[in-house]
């Protein structure tokens, strides 16, 4: 898909594959026949830059066709390079950062007001996205309103567009910050499917929840891992073949 569309943001998608896999596979309550089922849990992708990983899930679920993958970015095609809310399964328009999480908080608050707090909202943010002030405004609101149906998953892949998050604008320590903002907070290896699932299912306090998922940007392709040029580099025939070879040898379908 990334090759077909000559899309950037490949590495942004690879860091959250297991997070999405855990959510769609084990955690989310959703209707595979109807992405807009009103009784669903909501998966809000606030870091819209990783949307190709979510499209891959939609493809597995049958929500987008082979043609949509093959014709990614071609004239008149539906899927953009960032999450857009008119695509079934994409709950919000994101990409301009700091938008999705406040909307997710609004969804959680709206559900709470209608006594539907058993429906949950899972919001994936990037560690770079945490630079945005609107994120912290909304975290305060979620804690103040005791939105225990609201989950934040930080895809902490250590990088943002121009470099290491620790060097651009250091946001650590995440765990201390989320705890200080009133969240029940856990931390785990974001590429360990079982640990992500266990963490997401183990929250129990009557307040919003945060999971700091420690991830590797570009995970799964050795030459992309922790190499930030893959935030904005396009695949060519050689790198595509190498990447597929590595992913397939790791037991992952193309």
């Amino acid at each position, binding site marked *: 898909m990334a090759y077909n569309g000559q899309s950037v943001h490949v590495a942004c998608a690879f860091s959250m594959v297991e997070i999405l896999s855990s959510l769609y596979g084990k955690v989310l309550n959703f209707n595979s026949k109807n992405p807009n089922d009103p009784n669903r849990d909501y998966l809000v992708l606030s870091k819209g830059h990783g949307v190709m990983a979510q499209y891959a899930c939609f493809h597995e679920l049958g929500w987008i066709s082979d043609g949509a993958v093959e014709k990614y970015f071609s004239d008149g095609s539906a899927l953009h390079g960032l999450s*857009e*809310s*008119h695509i079934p399964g994409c*709950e*919000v*328009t994101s990409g*301009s950062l*700091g*938008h999705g*999480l*406040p*909307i*997710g*908080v*609004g*969804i*959680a*608050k*709206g*559900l709470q*007001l*209608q006594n*539907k707090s058993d429906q949950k909202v899972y919001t994936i943010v990037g560690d770079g996205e945490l630079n945005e*002030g*609107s994120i912290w*405004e*909304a975290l*305060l*609101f979620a804690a*103040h309103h005791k939105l225990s149906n609201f989950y934040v998953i930080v895809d902490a892949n250590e990088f943002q567009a121009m470099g290491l998050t620790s060097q651009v604008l250091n946001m650590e320590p995440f765990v201390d910050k989320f705890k200080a903002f009133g969240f029940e907070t856990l931390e785990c290896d974001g590429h360990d499917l079982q640990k992500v699932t266990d963490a997401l299912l183990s929250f129990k306090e009557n307040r919003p929840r945060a999971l700091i998922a420690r991830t590797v940007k570009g995970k799964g392709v050795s030459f992309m891992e922790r190499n930030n040029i893959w935030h904005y580099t396009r695949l060519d025939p050689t790198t595509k073949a190498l990447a597929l070879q590595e992913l397939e040898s790791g037991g992952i379908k193309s």
Partner: protein
Amino acid sequence: MRSMLSKLISRSAKENSNLYVLSGDHGYELFDEMRKATPDQFINAGVSEQAMIGYASGMSKVGLRPLIYGLASFIPVRVMEQIKLDLCLSKRPAIILGDGAGVVYTTLGSSHQCAEDIACLRPLPNLSVYSPCDRFELEVCFEEAMKADHPVYIRIGKSDRPEVHSVKLNHSGIHAIHESSKSVALVATGAMSSIAQEIGKKLGVSVYSISRIKPFPELELLKKHAHLMVLEEHSKYGGLFSSLAEKISEDVHCNTKLTSFSLEDHFAHQCGSYQYALSEHQMSDADLHRRVQARILELGNALKF
């Protein structure tokens, strides 16, 4: 107009249990009536306007009806991108109330004055823009906003000007508020409609009040005039004058010319009263009486009427 706004919000909240008011820690007595009757439907989101637009979008997504309130400098101007992406792009039926638009907060200075809200919002798809002048226009605009299936901005300017209408209106748009056969007329919106009416009566020219800026109403009522003078408490760029100029210039059958009496291209210079703040833009009541009369004389020579 403020007591009508308070009543409309309170009434809508009672009639519609899905209506929630979100305020960025502003509003004071405006919501007293509503908070007394339906306290659970008022959410003070704190001083966090950006995220508040997101909450409204999310709440709307699960079937609630948000009404977002703030001072126009902050809601909508500070949060324009949130309005664009979180409300307009996903076509969320939310009502955005921008209070104190224009130079209302004279003594608080330029941080609280807002001459650019209409210009900021007009290019956003799926959004309607209203600018009522008195309680009658406010009521019809609010009723239309409550029925809309998309986001709506209602601009509230100086609200204690004399009333312009005397009976309930059945639609927003253009209303004649003084009629004359002269070929020059005044067109105004919001806080300027009342002074325009006063001047029009004195000078014997027609006056029209425009309560909806987008989608802009049909021109039929205005086309018969050779010259329209536009009065608005908004920048000349992107407000009523611009909207009218765009509409007229695209109409091949309309040769009407315009004069703009709008806020000038500068921030507040000094502190003072509302009339003083307007006078820095040559827009005080006395300034407008003088300027409109002078312009009519000037045009009279040119147009020979």
